[in-house]
Structures are given as C-alpha cells and as structure tokens.
C-alpha cells in the first residue's frame, strides 16, 4: 500500500496529529484544531437546530398543518431573546423556569420506575452465593448513602462495606471503559498507519 493521495485523508490525519500534540503541551497546532472543531460543531449545530426545530417543529406545523398551539412554545422560546434588552431580561426566566419545572416533574415518575426496576432486578430467584453478594452489596451501598445518620458504630461498619462494594464496581467499570478507549486509540492509529501512510494493511 502507498501513502494516501486523498486530500480528505490528509486533512483528517493532520488534524488527528494536531489534537494528539496536546499530549506534549498546548501549541498553535492544537489551538487551530480546537478552534476548527468548536467552530464547525457550532455551525453544524445551528443547521441541525434550524432544520430539526425551526422548520420541523415550528414552521411546518404552523404554516402547513395550521397547528396554532405551536405559538405558545414559540413565544416562550422568543422570550429567551429578552436577555439582549437590559430592562426586559428578567422575562427570560419564564422559559427557563418552565423547562426546569417540567423537566424535573417529568423525571420524578421515571426515576421511581427506574428505582423499582432496580429493586425488582435485585430480588433473588434462587439461593446462590452470587445472589447473596448482590443483596448484601445493594443493602450496604444504600446504607452508605444514609445522610441523616452518623457513620459510626454498626452503621459505620456497614457503610464501609458499602463503599468497598462501590469501589470494586468502580474498578471493574474503570478497566472495562479503558479497554474500550484503547480500542478507539487503536482505531485512530490504524487510520494513520493504514489509510494515511499505507504502512500496514
């Protein structure tokens, strides 16, 4: 295999190296790649918002489907622009309050359901050592998250068992994720050595 003649492969490879140069120290190449990434992603984001939100959820329902209920969220959205006017900037708090309130309210039932699913999943269907460890792990971890009790004496000992379970879980998750990250790194190296330089097949 020979070195790539595609301009896009070259751009990708040089930008990859520019980002990796951060491992040495901050430098103009990294800055260039960083600003390019941030700038392009903002531009891309605006076009996505334009098509997926403004056109699909506002313009089309309003103009084509005559769904005038869309005017309510549209007005709430427009209130965000009041921040540009000092005397009216407080109006932008209305849509923010609406979003935070609705988001929190909607997440409460789903949080409960998620909790019950976890409790259900913890229930043992057979008496095995594995199931017993899961039960002990869950209960001691819950006790670690008791905030209104001092972690001393029996509660202290149990919560220490709980944090040990948490750390074991973290260790396993850490190793698992690192493996995934290494495979991403290998993918990038393969791109540089194969697609760009053609050193390996």
């Amino acid at each position: 295999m020979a070195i790539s003649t595609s301009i896009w492969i070259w751009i990708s490879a040089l930008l990859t190296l520019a980002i990796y140069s951060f491992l040495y120290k901050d430098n103009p190449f990294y800055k260039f790649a960083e600003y390019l990434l941030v700038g392009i992603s903002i531009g891309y984001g605006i076009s996505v918002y334009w098509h997926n939100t403004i056109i699909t959820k506002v313009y089309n329902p309003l103009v084509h489907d005559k769904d005038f209920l869309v005017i309510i969220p549209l007005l709430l959205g427009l209130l965000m622009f009041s921040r540009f006017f000092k005397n009216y900037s407080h109006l932008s708090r209305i849509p923010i309050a609406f979003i935070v309130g609705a988001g929190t309210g909607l997440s409460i039932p789903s949080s409960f359901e998620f909790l019950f699913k976890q409790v259900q999943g913890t229930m043992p269907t057979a008496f095995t050592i594995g199931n017993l460890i899961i039960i002990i792990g869950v209960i001691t971890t819950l006790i670690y998250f008791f905030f209104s009790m001092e972690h001393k004496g029996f509660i202290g000992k149990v919560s220490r068992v709980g944090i040990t379970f948490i750390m074991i879980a973290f260790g396993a998750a850490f190793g698992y994720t690192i493996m995934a990250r290494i495979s991403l790194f290998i993918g990038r190296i393969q791109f540089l050595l194969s697609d760009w330089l053609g050193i390996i097949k």
Partner: protein
Amino acid sequence: MKKNLVLLLLSLTLLFSFSFAQEQASGGTDLNPNAISSETERLGSMLQLSDIPNDGGGGIEINWTLNDSLSNYFITIIRREGNIKKIVASDLLASSGQVRDVNSDENKSNVKDGTEYFYTAVLSEYAVSQEILDYLVCDSLDMEAMTIADANQVYLISDESGPVKSKASWFNLERLTVLISAIIITFLFLLYLQLARKGKELYIRKISGLDAVEEAVGRSTEMGKPIMYILGIGYVTDIPTIAGLTILGRVSKKVAEYETKILVPSYDPVVMTTAQEVVKEAFTEAGRPDLYNKNDIMYITQDQFGYAAGVDGMMLREKPGAVFLQGLFFAESLILAETGHSIGAIQIAGTTETAQLPFFVAACDYTLIGEEMMAASVYLQKDPLMLSSIAAEDVMKVIIIIILLIGLILGILGPGMHIEFFDKLFNLLIEIL
C-alpha cells in the same frame, strides 16, 4: 395491470392443484402449499383485538396464537377503516404473537379514538412482495377469500376480526406503585418539615468533597487564579445538571465573598443562561453584584468532544486554581479531569453517571458519588427545612431495604425451595414492583 395479473394467478391457483403451485414456486424453494391448505380451515378469525390499556389513546393491540407448524411463517396485518385499507405490519415472524397499531410522531392520526377498525392477517412462508402488498390494500381484494397466490407462493388469509375502537385511559394503573411511593415520600417530607419547624434538630453526615469547597476557593484566591466550574454535557432538564447548578450557586457565593473569578464554560445555551442567572443571584446575595461578569459564563459548543477540546484549551490557558466538575458527564470526563490534574488544580467532581465516576475517583481530589451530589445543596446551606428532605429520603431507603429483605426471604422460600405459597407471594411482589 399488476392487480389483474395477481387475480389471474389467483384463479390459476384455485383451478390447479397446490402441487402445481409448488412447481411454480420452484427456484429451489421448499414451498408446501398442501401444508398451507391443511391450515386453511383452522385460521378463521385468528386475531384478538383490544385497545391498549393505560395509554393516552391512539393505539390498538393485536394478538394471535398459531400452532407450531406455522410458527416459522411470516405474518402481514391489514387494517380496514370503512373502505380504506392499510398495511399495519408486514413480514413479521408469526411466532412474535403480537403487534401494536399506534400513532407515531410522523403520523399522529394513524389510529383515531372512537373509530371502528377491522383487522385481517395474511400468512406466507416467504417475505411478501410489494405487488402483493399493493394488492392487499386495493379495493378489489375480496376479504372473504381464504388464499391468494403469486408466482412464488400461496398466501393464507384469515377472517376479518373486529370491530375495535381505541380510547384514552384516565389513569395509567401500571404506575400505581409510583403514585403510592410519591404519596409516601411526600408524607414523609411534610412530616420531617413539620418536625424541623417545631425545632427538631436534623443531622446531616460529613461529606468530605463539600467541606473542601471553601478550601478550593480560598486556595485559588491566594494563588490569584480563577475557578472553573464545568457543568458537563447535560441539559437543564437533567437532574445532575440541576444539582450542579444548585452547587454552582453556593460556590459562586463563596467566590464573590473571596472576590475572585469564576469561569463556567457551557455545553448547552439554556444551561448557560441558567448558570448566568444562578451566578448573578449568588453574587448579589453575597453583596458583590459589581463583580459579576456574564461573559465569564460562556457557550462553547454542543458537540461532545468539541466541548472537551474547548474546555481543555481554556484550562491550559487560564490555569484555574480549582476545577469543579459537577453535572452530567460521559466519555469526556477523563479528558477533562486529566487536564485539570495536569495543571495542578484542586478538583472536586460529582456526577450520577456510574460509568464516569471511576475516572473522577482516579483523577480528582474529591468526588461526590451519586446522591452525595444531590445532598450537596442541603449540606452547603444546612437549612433545617431543607434537611427534612434528606431525612425523608433516608426513610425511603429504609423502606427499600425492607422490601429487599422481604424479597430475599420470599425468594429463598419460593423460587429457591419451591414452596408454592411463598412462590406466589414472591411473584406478587415482583408484579407490584
């Protein structure tokens, strides 16, 4: 033209034997029309139709049961509303036993509440061709027909089932447990609130990460460096982001008291606006509104790694003395925490994302694990009324532990030791949850 061709083939199929049809299908296929014809009498009205319970309307559930000989067949469902026919689903595995005809974002009036619908099933050994699908919804299709055929195979048609109407439910009974839990926790919260009002002292245990907030802000001030507060890549509707914003308020107050600078690079424009309001209010509360600069709370980008690259660059250039990572984080967590560590900043992290917590534990000085982050605002303020919510949550945890222990005992005696009574109780408990 195509419809005529299909009708012609249908006639041919009825005239000639099914074995001839097998030859027609040839091309190496194992079509066995005799097997199909033997099932013809049995299909009948095979679809059971019902309104989807506990929904907001606009949904019909279609169930069917078939004998084993037809389990490898494909099933296509046709809906009739007056004279209008529509394919609801095609080429489903007959063994799936169920499909739902529902409204979607693309078609919000697919199923209209109160309208009578009729459904018919078409069974085939192989995938249905587009010509047949078109034929199935054409006006000339005789819904009384039991079979049709094309060059490849014979299609078996069920009797039409229906009518069925969809309707919206007032209550989602599947969420009854959620309602009961919400009532219990509200009651507990109000009880502890009342106790706090009457002067009962409520305790909150030490959370090391939060004790270090003052130390981190103080250290940055002494070094003459700013503080960086990263809210992650969540939206303002995400609970960890809301918790992060609450902690931001407390940290900002300390920042204003110490007369230092806080930088908040944001991922989402609404989060940025909310953060600006939170910091502004905190500075005003601390009596230093003059120190507030809205440009210190800036938008970076809504691209995950673009955000990580931008924040990393900012960290290296601004060299903050303390970095707070409080909110919703995903794959960028280690990139941010490692950069913060490399510039020697004191780092206090917190998230509910269990996959990212190990990275924070490894790379940060203090980490708020899951609910510790939610308790942070109460801990930093130590308002007796807010402490009541923590006490109520703890009681809820005790209830969960009791349910788990009951489940453990029932699990051992029921599914474990096969005692029927406990087995029933165990299944009941699982159903309630």
